[in-house]
């Protein structure tokens, strides 16, 4: 029973796994946060859990990657590198694991090779295990990541993305494993990435068995989601058939779409004679006890719809996208259409488009297409740019079969064959001039950026600049607990907030009154470490201008839309304004497409009328209630 720890040479880790008499566990804290809390679990909470998690004896802590890198800087205001450094101080032994989207890294679209390599090199300084996938299982798309991870002497964990259907045979997947090993060599861990929690326990058991038959020395890491409530079953069968590592998460925070509760996995397998290697069950319980009270502060980020979703086997949405899809449906006022979208249109679109894997960014293409098909009326009538790229083969070849010709025609137009001929094929992205990007960033933030700052900038240019400015102004805010950071409705007068800053200094802030003075400005009085401080806020200007408009409620936004004043229903970016001033539109016509996180949502007109005034443009970042355009209602 050997504990695997941070700093252990790759070959030693792999040999330990090969000789393991039992199985190891990865605590998928990042995936839990992404699937069940819209990625909002704060570093503060992870730090509360750190000591007990370290003691628990996990194979690894999956704590970065996926959408978290983006959300860290966008909504949590923490530097993803700082997060890893701070956690490492508290957790010297546990390996850190990431989820990397191959050519898309931690974003939603492909990056140039030199950006991929630079990014992986920087993160590899802190990340021990690299779980890498491609949504088309196109191995070439992962090659640069594999190479950089190997060069950094870290552990490659390539994925085969798993799904169900007649095409998804054991033979197909074993063939994919062969393709991977041809590129990486045998010194890897293989991940079965079951991002939707699809298939039955029996199906997963058979798959693991089949791979093990062909590759007995290949350690298998099973990753699943508990969307249907049955991932413990799949994990059990995976371990029985030879998987060496499985994913689960702290039970006091488990929800409906993420990893299953870790203690249930251990208890189930123990009865069956399988030991969780080096796992300290008391420390696992201790972890959940340490963070349980924090969960209530994340309430606003938990799913709008409670309960497991066994119908995931039909719609196949990945656990990581469930929360954001439902949020979008709720904010876009089409929750009532969800049964249609999820249970009819989505499976239909999947089959039509080739029955590949519903995972980022493919899951977004499927979802956006299905939503647009249902809400827009005409199927494939409003194809997104990503769908177009998919059909052009920019992301890789279709693994099983191509969509039918009428879809190509709908999406690419009448002379689709010619377009396919001219533009089709894997997208080759030119390298970026990194020196130039560094200079551009320096111009924007006013200082010479560090390599890590440049990495963040290359991932998400605008959001990284905003974040770096935020950091300069507000400091290291990860020290704040969710009860402060996510507080809604303001604080109570006299409430005293205690926290330790990142240097370890204790602070105390007492909330004072917030009078509005004669100029309309508000003075917020805070007693900071026994010294009174006043923070002055300019009055908010409604209807544009410098100040931020007050956030409108969902009902108010709908009321305005009914009157022809189209507002943004959620926080996101305008991808496209689909109409022109003076254009006549009907109820249900798409007026704009907005993107929040990775989901594109069409914004539809609620009335018949003429577009009179457009105030938003593509690229604008809007808050709920911000103006998009005005429609003069037909009377």
């Amino acid at each position, binding site marked *: 029973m050997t504990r695997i720890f941070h700093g252990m040479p790759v070959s030693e880790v792999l040999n330990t796994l090969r000789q393991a008499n039992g199985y190891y566990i990865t605590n998928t804290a990042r995936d839990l946060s992404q699937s069940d809390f819209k990625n*909002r679990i704060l570093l503060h909470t992870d730090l509360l859990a750190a000591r007990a998690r370290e003691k628990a004896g996990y194979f690894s802590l999956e704590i970065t990657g996926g959408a978290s890198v983006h959300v860290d800087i966008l*909504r*949590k*205001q923490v530097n993803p590198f700082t997060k890893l450094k701070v956690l490492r101080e508290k957790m010297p032994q546990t390996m850190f694991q990431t989820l990397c989207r191959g050519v898309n890294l931690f974003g939603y679209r492909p990056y140039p090779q030199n950006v991929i390599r630079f990014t992986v090199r920087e993160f590899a300084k802190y990340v021990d295990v690299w779980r890498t996938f491609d949504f088309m299982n196109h191995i070439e798309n992962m090659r640069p990541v594999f190479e950089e991870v190997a060069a950094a002497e870290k552990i490659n964990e390539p994925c085969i993305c798993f799904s169900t259907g007649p095409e998804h045979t054991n033979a197909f997947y074993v063939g994919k494993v062969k393709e991977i090993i041809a590129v990486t060599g045998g010194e890897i861990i293989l991940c079965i990435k079951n991002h939707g929690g699809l298939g039955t326990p029996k199906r997963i058991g058979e798959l693991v068995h089949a791979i093990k038959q062909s590759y007995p020395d290949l350690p298998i890491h099973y990753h699943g989601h508990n969307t249907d409530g049955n991932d413990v079953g799949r994990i059990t069968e995976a371990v029985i058939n030879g998987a060496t590592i499985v994913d689960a998460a702290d039970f006091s925070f488990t929800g409906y779409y993420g990893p299953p509760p870790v203690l249930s996995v251990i208890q189930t397998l123990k009865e069956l004679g399988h030991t969780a290697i080096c796992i300290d069950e008391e420390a696992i319980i201790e972890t959940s006890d340490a963070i349980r009270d924090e969960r209530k502060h994340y309430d606003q980020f938990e799913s709008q719809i409670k309960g497991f979703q066994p119908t995931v086997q039909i719609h196949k949405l990945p656990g990581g996208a469930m929360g954001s899809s439902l949020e979008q449906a709720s904010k876009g006022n089409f929750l009532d259409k969800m049964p249609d979208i999820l249970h009819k249109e989505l499976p239909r679109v999947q089959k039509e488009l080739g029955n590949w894997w519903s995972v980022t960014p493919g899951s977004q293409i499927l979802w956006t297409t299905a939503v647009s098909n249902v809400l827009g009326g005409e199927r494939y009538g409003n194809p997104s740019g990503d769908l177009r790229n998919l059909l052009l083969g920019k992301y890789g070849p279709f693994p099983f079969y191509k969509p039918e010709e009428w879809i190509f025609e709908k999406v690419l137009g009448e002379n689709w064959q010619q377009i396919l001929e001219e533009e089709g094929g894997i997208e080759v992205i030119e390298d970026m001039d990194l020196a130039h990007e560094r200079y551009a960033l320096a111009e924007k933030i006013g200082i010479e950026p560090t390599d890590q700052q440049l990495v963040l900038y290359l991932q998400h240019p605008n959001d990284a600049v905003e974040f770096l400015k*935020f950091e*300069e*102004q*507000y*400091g*290291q*805010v990860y*020290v*704040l607990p969710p009860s*402060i*950071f*996510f*507080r*809604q*409705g*303001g*604080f109570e007068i006299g409430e005293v*907030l205690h*926290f330790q*800053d*990142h*240097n370890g*200094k204790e*602070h105390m*802030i007492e*909330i004072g009154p*917030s009078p509005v003075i004669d100029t309309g400005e*508000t003075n*917020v009085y*805070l007693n*900071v*470490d026994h*010294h*009174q*401080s*006043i*923070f*002055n*806020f300019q009055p908010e200007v409604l209807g544009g201008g410098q100040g*931020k408009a007050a*956030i409108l409620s969902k009902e108010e936004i709908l009321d305005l839309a009914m009157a022809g004043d189209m507002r943004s229903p959620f*926080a996101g970016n305008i991808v496209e304004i689909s109409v022109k001033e003076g254009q006549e539109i009907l109820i249900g016509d798409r007026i704009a497409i907005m993107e929040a996180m990775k989901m594109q949502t069409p914004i539809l007109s609620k009335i018949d009328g003429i577009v009179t005034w457009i105030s938003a443009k593509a690229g604008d970042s809007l808050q709920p209630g911000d103006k998009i355009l005005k429609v003069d209602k037909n009377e």
Partner: protein
Amino acid sequence: MKKKILVANRGEIAIRLIRAIQELDHEAVAVYETPDQRSRHIRIANEAVLLGDGPRCDYLNIDKIIKAAKRSGCCAIHPGYGFLAENPFFAKACETSGLIFIGPSSKTIYDLGNKVIARKIMADAGIPMVPGTENLPQGREGIEKALAFAAQYKYPLMLKATSGGGGRGIRLVESDAQMKAEIPVARAEALAAFNDDSVYLEKVVINPKHVEVQILADQFGHTVHLGTRDCSIQRRNQKLIEIAPSMIQNKELLDEICKTAVKAAKAANYVNAGTVEFLIDHNFNYYFMEINTRVQVEHTVTEMITGIDIVRNQIQLAFGNPLPFSQEDVQIRGHAIEVRINAEDPKNNFMPEGGKKVSVYRSTGGFGVRLDGFVYQGYIIPEVYDSLLVKLTVHGFTWTETVSRLHRCLENFVIAGPKTTIPFYKNIVQDKDFISGSFDTSYLEKHPHLFLYDEDASEAGKLAKLIAEIHYRKRNPFAI
């Protein structure tokens, strides 16, 4: 008898003057320009008179100030430093209007303000001076005189505008060719800046220490000195840090300089408070530089080590009182350091942070700490006046204690909003050359690492700002 005194200044010095006036049981009348209408000196004064919309022109308007003094029934005017403080015409206008000008006579100000007359007075009195010329004659003759002087004393030389001062109107000349080119330019510049195109030459003392002596003199012929100050730490001739007494480990030299200062003041028939400035080279030669005829920004360090209130004495002397103590009564005790906390970005060539608002202001305190400030929480750094927020002066029994105290105070000081010179000073108080007392006017140039620091602002202040946002917006606008 209660008297009314007009304070013809703004900023921290206005407050300093008002305090002294009120401690003497007199009344202070403040004046202000419209951009200063929220300023602290107006609240503290017994009365305030609006001079006009300014900016800067009304504080410099002799007529308006004299009228304001007359109308409010003042019998005296204290000019502070800057603005009209060393303008002989202002002193003259006070004299002719029957107002007491708190400072030396207009003639003294005129004589000492003219570098060439001043040099002549000092030369006649046998005060050691940097070799230099008289006003250079116009045209060819002037250039020839200059070249002859250069041949005798060697380059580098300093070409100075006779009416310049405070670091303005001086330029370094290093060759004959440059000399020929620079003289006409310097003249044109001096004419534009000081309305006087006279220039003269001086030998350059390489990397000197800047040491000055505070003197007080009454009209009965008593002149005393209050010891030395070292103002060597400057950037482009603007002082940043001042200490008292000088750290030169040569008591005889310092005593001699102090005696020379008294002699110089007497030679100029000096009355009231003044400062005699010297340059000291590396061989301990000292040279008279000039006499400043005003209260200096850095007068606080002298007050700390002597316990003598210079401004109070200025007022008493101006009212014709004799000095209430003799030289023997002046005791120097310990060390003092003053730093000027300015809303400036040292990294960006000390660019003022005009227009920014002080969102958090938390000052320091404790034993041996003195603050002369103007800033308050909510203060907006004026774009039209200077950027001095507060002067921090510390006093200690030993030099080491004083430096540690300054360090502690700077650590405790929190100013959020504008960038300030605080982090820069923090680097200085930790620099080994500063700690060992060895610095001259080349100090900043030779210590570029002083400009390397992380932008200051306490973590608590920054986090408090986010908490205020969350509270005000009723949600975290950066998290949703």
